[in-house]
């Protein structure tokens, strides 16, 4: 089997010792020693409380950590080999680790976890992000329960999040997946999620790993595969998600692994999404996610400036990508002062759709297309923040809903641009 060569010998030996598992917790890491200890304690706690009788294993896929992250994780296994441990557990709880590469590649990490899950015949698997420091033990239950007891194939998380946290998700990924694939999955890019053995095996076989080995953003692919494959999907409320520290320079890699992956997927999934119209709610458990309204430090001026600069400097690039009318409109709003500046929803939707079409046709190098989206996104963020500056949670939710409907309404425009110039 292909998996056999993909996994290291030592890791395979450890899998043999584990034998079989009911629940598998995947933890991809790279230099996370600061946060991962507490997270594994929480995972353990969640397992011992919610699933004390199940055979559970924690699989750490490590991308070449140099700060002792793997050792931290494996030291937290519960077994009779360390009688001094004061944690009571009915059975052994394994925590094993493998180094899949010397540099972090989340696609390879996920593939490792999927392969381990298949070999161990785990019924329910979850993946936890090593950056989720706010995780509680209920998160574990909330992710596993729908798969283990209720037969769902994919569990997508929902959180209480700040209204300005995750704007790429709320302004692009969520509405676009919703409009094109017809599924209202709020966290289109999942940092933690649960999936069934069925979905995992199929994704492992079907996905073209050789093309995009190491590509980040495979989680998005998994979610889309679940949607297009007719798998049962649900959303489960986890808790409060704190914004993760990011630098401005991280926007482009982020776009690559989310929007880039989505655009690529559109090409292969064309037959599916081109025939769908409207969207449906996905079954949801737990509380309703709320938008939090604490004040957040935002440098609005810089956002608008980068938008304006982008529009002016990248004119030649945009000419290949956007339609003349859209580009003209962008130039127009770039000329507006800070007070009047607005990047309206309809224009944003057209922009995104035309980018998607251009990406599919490779009018210029695809990675350059993604990079050039960054300044436009910043402009959109500016408008979103301004419009929702003093809004209540309800109003923000309404605005997001409005944006989604706009995406759905303009879907024919995407189809039109997609098919033209073929």
């Amino acid at each position, binding site marked *: 089997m292909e998996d056999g060569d993909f996994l290291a010998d030592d890791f395979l030996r450890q899998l043999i010792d584990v034998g079989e598992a009911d629940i598998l917790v995947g933890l991809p890491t790279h230099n996370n020693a600061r946060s991962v200890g507490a997270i594994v304690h929480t995972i353990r706690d969640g397992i011992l409380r919610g699933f004390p009788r199940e055979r559970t294993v924690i699989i750490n896929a490590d991308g070449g950590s140099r700060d002792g992250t793997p050792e931290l994780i494996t030291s937290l296994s519960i077994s009779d080999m360390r009688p001094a441990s004061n944690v009571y557990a009915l059975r052994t709880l394994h925590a094993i680790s493998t180094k899949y590469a010397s540099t972090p590649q989340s696609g390879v990490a996920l593939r490792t976890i999927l392969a381990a899950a298949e070999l161990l015949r785990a019924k329910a698997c979850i993946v936890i992000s090593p950056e989720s420091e706010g995780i509680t033990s209920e998160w574990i239950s909330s992710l596993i329960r729908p798969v283990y007891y209720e037969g769902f194939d994919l569990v997508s998380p929902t959180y209480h999040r700040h209204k300005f946290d995750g704007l790429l998700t709320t302004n692009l990924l969520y509405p676009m997946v919703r409009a094109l694939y017809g599924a209202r999955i709020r966290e289109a890019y999942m940092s933690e999620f649960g999936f069934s053995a069925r979905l995992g095996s199929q994704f492992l076989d079907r996905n073209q790993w050789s093309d995009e080995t190491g590509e980040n953003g495979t989680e998005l692919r998994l979610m889309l595969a679940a949607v297009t494959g007719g798998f049962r999907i649900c959303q489960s409320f986890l808790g409060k998600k704190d914004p993760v520290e990011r630098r401005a*320079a991280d926007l482009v890699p982020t776009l690559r692994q989310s929007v880039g992956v989505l655009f690529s997927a559109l090409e292969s999934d064309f037959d599916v999404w081109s025939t769908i119209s409207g969207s449906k709610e996905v079954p949801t458990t737990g509380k309703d996610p709320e938008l939090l309204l604490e004040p957040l430090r935002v440098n609005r001026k810089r956002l608008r400036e980068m938008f304006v600069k982008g529009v002016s400097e990248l004119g030649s690039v945009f000419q290949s990508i956007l339609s003349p009318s859209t580009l003209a409109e962008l130039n127009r709003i770039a000329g507006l002062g800070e007070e009047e500046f607005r990047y309206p929803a309809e224009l944003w939707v057209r922009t995104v759709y035309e980018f998607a079409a251009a990406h599919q046709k490779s009018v210029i*190098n695809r990675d*350059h297309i993604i990079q050039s989206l960054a300044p436009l996104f910043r402009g959109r963020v500016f408008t979103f923040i301004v419009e929702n500056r003093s809004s209540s949670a309800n109003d923000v939710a309404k605005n997001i809903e409005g944006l989604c409907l706009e995406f759905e309404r303009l879907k024919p425009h995407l189809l039109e641009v997609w098919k033209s110039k073929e």
Partner: protein
Amino acid sequence: MREMIISELSQAVHDLARGFAHYLPRLIVMLVIVFAGWLIAYVIKVILRSILRLAKFDRLAENAGASQLLSKAALPSAMEMLSRFVFWLTWLGFLLLGVSVLGILGLQEQTARFFLFLPRLFAAVLILFFGLLAAGFSARAALLAAVNANIPSPRLLSLAVRSIIMVFVLSVVFEELGLAEQTMLVAFGIAFGALMLGLAIAFGIGGRDLARRFLEEKFVRVKKEKDEDELSPL
């Protein structure tokens, strides 16, 4: 007197006829070659066009920016250009071959030299083409990187990158064609050196702050600066 003229004339006509008789078969052969050549060149052009279409050559050319260049110059598409170029080249080859059959000495030498020159011409065209591709690609990459990193004057930077690469490509092309090699090389050396020196000075003195920020970002984990914000896109 009349007899002399007639005899001279008949001699001349006789010579001419002899000349004709000498060259006529060759002329016929030449015409045949030329005609066959035209046919072959045409067939090759059609085949080449199909191959290029299958290989999506158009897209490649667009990426290189060649298409834009050509359309600006009101020329037909790159694929068309290439096919026609190959057609003419092939036919020219056959023409020269036909001419050489005629046996005119000077021409034969020229023909031989021409055929020797062909591969280098072909290589030069290839280098130019891929050079254009690389220059266009790198220029755009630099432009995008500069815009997203908020570096001032991104278009200037993009142009600089494109220029450097084009200068380099052109010098290699000229060297390949054997035209003014030394001059081009020296010119390139001077231009490149001057550019590098200029950049170094600019970078070192004028771009001190930029350099510092760049290095800090790469090697030092620093607290967020005032103008950074707390937004996380995902």
